[in-house]
Structure formats: C-alpha cells, structure tokens
C-alpha cells in the first residue's frame, strides 16, 4: 500500500495541499482529476518521495515516513519500487531512446532484452528507438518515458499527464498496458484530463481543487458527481470535447 496521510504542503505562504489523504492500493488504478493549480502534481511528487510535505505522513508497505523529514538524506526512498513518469518526461538527452530504456536496467542489473523488445514492439517504437529524445516527437517521447518506467516493474507507478500528446490508438495501447500492470498487482496513480481514459481505466477517482480533495469514489463519480464544483468542472471538460 502506498498512502499519503493528512498531507499539508505550503510554498512560502501559499498552502497548496490542505489535509489531503490518498491511498494507492496495489492492483488498482487511481485517477486524479482537477483543474490546473489544484495541487495534483505536488501530491504526486510527495507520493513519489520527491517533495517533502510540511505535515502528515507517507506509508509504503509496512513503513511509515512521517513529515517533516529531519533531512532528506536520512530517509531511503523506495525507488524504483515507486516510480514516476513526469509530464515533462525527463528523458536523458545524451542517450538514445533505446539507451534510455536499457540503462536503468543495466544499472539495476535487471537486463531483460526480451522484455525490452516486446515493449518496443507493443508501443510501436521500432522505427525511432535509436534516435535521441530531441529528434522525435512529443508523443514518441511519451511512449519511451512510459516504457522506461514499465521496464522497472515498479510496485507503484505514478503517471502525470502522460497521454497529453498521444493519439487515440496510442492512448488505447497505454490503457491496455496499464490494465495488464494492474492485473499483475501494480498500484497505479494517474493524473489526467482525459475523462474517457479515466472512465475506462479507473477503479478510484479523486477530484482535487484548491489543494483539497472535493470528491472521491468509484468511476460512478464521473457520471454522478455530488459536489457542485466537480459537476461544473466535468461539464466544462465535456463541452470542450
């Protein structure tokens, strides 16, 4: 279980997360939706052990990491059991996409060329896998970044808007991969604005606004939101489609 409990986080005097608790269960897909600036990415970074909160705690399996951390070096984050694909992707620019995929496996002594080849094939990356990140499109980079994370076989996978530049077919491939991962027991937390993606994939929907969770529940939250703010946000997104 990956869980954030009663998280408070401020940047200078602005509170960006107010008493937020989120549970990422293994073998489930949790989806966070909400407007820009609602604190989704900050929450994801905290869950990924990249951003310390001011108060609250993180729980990973049997271990609890209470905030504030005395010093970042004093805790040992459970990477890559918990790993992230960022919206900005952060592929290493001096390596080809293939090297981006295989280098972490080499460093972790988990080389598995068969799996790499299968994933390249599945994500249709064969044509551009030997190019550098700046030589391919955003959609191609997004696929490579997702592949890099998937190859690590994390227990918990956190994804921040990874489908923003993918076409319908690619989104459907990613969705199918995530469902496979879920069935293998991986806990997935996903930030997205794609409601259909959320409907198709989510076991749990979390709606955030202004640093708080306004509503959460099963996929039915998207069909019958109770909170007025959620209703308004969803209707704006639906009408923009």
């Amino acid at each position, binding site marked *: 279980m990956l869980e954030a409990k009663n998280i408070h986080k401020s940047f200078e005097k602005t509170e960006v997360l107010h008493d937020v608790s989120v549970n990422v269960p293994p073998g489930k897909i949790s989806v966070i939706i909400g407007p820009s600036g609602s604190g989704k990415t900050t929450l994801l970074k905290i869950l990924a052990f990249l951003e310390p909160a001011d108060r609250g705690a993180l729980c990973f399996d049997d271990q609890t990491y209470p905030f504030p951390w005395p010093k970042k070096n004093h805790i040992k984050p459970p990477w890559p059991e918990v790993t992230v694909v960022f919206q900005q992707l952060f592929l290493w620019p*001096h390596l080809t996409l293939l090297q981006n995929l295989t280098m972490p496996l080499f460093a972790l002594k988990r080389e598995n060329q068969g799996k790499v080849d299968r994933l390249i094939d599945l994500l249709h990356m064969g044509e551009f896998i030997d190019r550098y990140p700046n030589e391919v499109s955003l959609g191609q980079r997004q696929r490579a970044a997702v592949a890099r994370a998937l190859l*690590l076989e994390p227990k918990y996978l956190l994804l921040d808007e990874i489908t923003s530049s993918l076409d319908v077919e690619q989104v459907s491939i990613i969705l199918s991969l995530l469902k496979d991962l879920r069935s293998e027991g991986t806990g997935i937390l996903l930030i997205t604005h794609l409601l259909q993606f959320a409907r198709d994939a989510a076991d749990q929907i979390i709606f955030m606004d202004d640093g708080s969770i306004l509503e959460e529940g099963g996929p039915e939250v998207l069909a019958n939101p109770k909170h007025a703010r959620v209703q308004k946000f969803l209707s704006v997104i639906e009408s923009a489609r």
Partner: protein
Amino acid sequence: MVTFELGLIVCLVGLIMGAILGSLGAKWGLTVGLPTRIISFVLSGMPILVFLFWLHYPVQAMLGVVIDPFITASVTLATINTFAVADVIRTVLRDFPKQYMIAAQVCGLTPFQSLVLIQLPIVFRQTIPGLLMIQVTMLQATLFASLISVPEIFRVAQQINAQVYKPVEIYTALGILFLALCLPMNGIAILLRKRFTRDFSER
C-alpha cells in the same frame, strides 16, 4: 621544445585546477563561486601581456625576488587558464538540469551511478568543445612568453632571423606550425560541439 613544455604545463594545470575550482564553485556558490567569478571577470578585462609583464617586473621588484621567466610565464598563463576553465565548468554544473538526476533517482540509480552515467557524460559533452577552444588560445598565448625572455619558439625564430635574415621563410614556417597545431584542435572542438552539444531542447 620550451613552447610545448610551457603549453603542456599551462594546459594540464589549467584543466586540473580549473576543474577543481569550477566544481567547488558550483557547490559553494557564495564562498568559492563568487570570488572565482570576480577574479575571472577581472582577468578577462586584463590583456595577457600586461598581466605577464606585471608579474615579471613590478611584482618581483616589490617582493625583492627574481624568478625564472619560464616559471613566471607558466604561473601567469596557468592562472588565466585555470580561471577560464573554472568559469566554464562552474557554469555548466550550476545550470545542469536537475530533472535528469531526479529521473535517474526514481529509476533506482544510486547517487554514484547517477553521477557517472548521467551527470558526467552530459557535463563532459557540454564542456569539452569550449575547453578545447580555450586550450588553443592558451597555446597561442605562450608566444607572449618570448617578451619576458623565455626561449620559446617565437624567441628562437627571432634569434634565427637575426642571424640569417629570412623573415618570410622563418615566420611563415612558424605560422604553418601553429596552424598545424591549432587548426586540428579547433576543428575537433567544432566537431565535438556539433556532435555533443546538440539541441537538448525537446520539440
């Protein structure tokens, strides 16, 4: 031979000391980085020849010492090289995009693996062309040492010319020698810059 000896000392000392100073300056911006930048800035505004003469005559006169001109030239040029190299390395390290290290962390790489596999290769690619160009400039600057009586190649050329008076042949040969040395280095720097400092921005 003296020219190559001088050039080698200047390059080696400058690269090693500059790398150390640049790394320390990136880590401790206020205590090391700022003084280094100020010294770098001052040195960049002072002609090499003036600095060389200043260390050779007034400083030694003030201190009441006489130092071998070869040592004076080595110290002067190595100092200039050190601060130029430190400036390049400090800037690249300071501006190194932290997100690449974050990506390495979440992929499970140890700090040492992140340094060796991610940070150093990127920093190396970004600094090496600039550092090569600086070394070419420093090699050319070794000629100034002739003006404080270091018997380096330019001074030898002058002496030979004084005896046989064949300035066209002698100075042309000297020019060709430096071209043969510096052009390949500049060419390599340009090639490396093209190859290594590709546009890292992602479309």
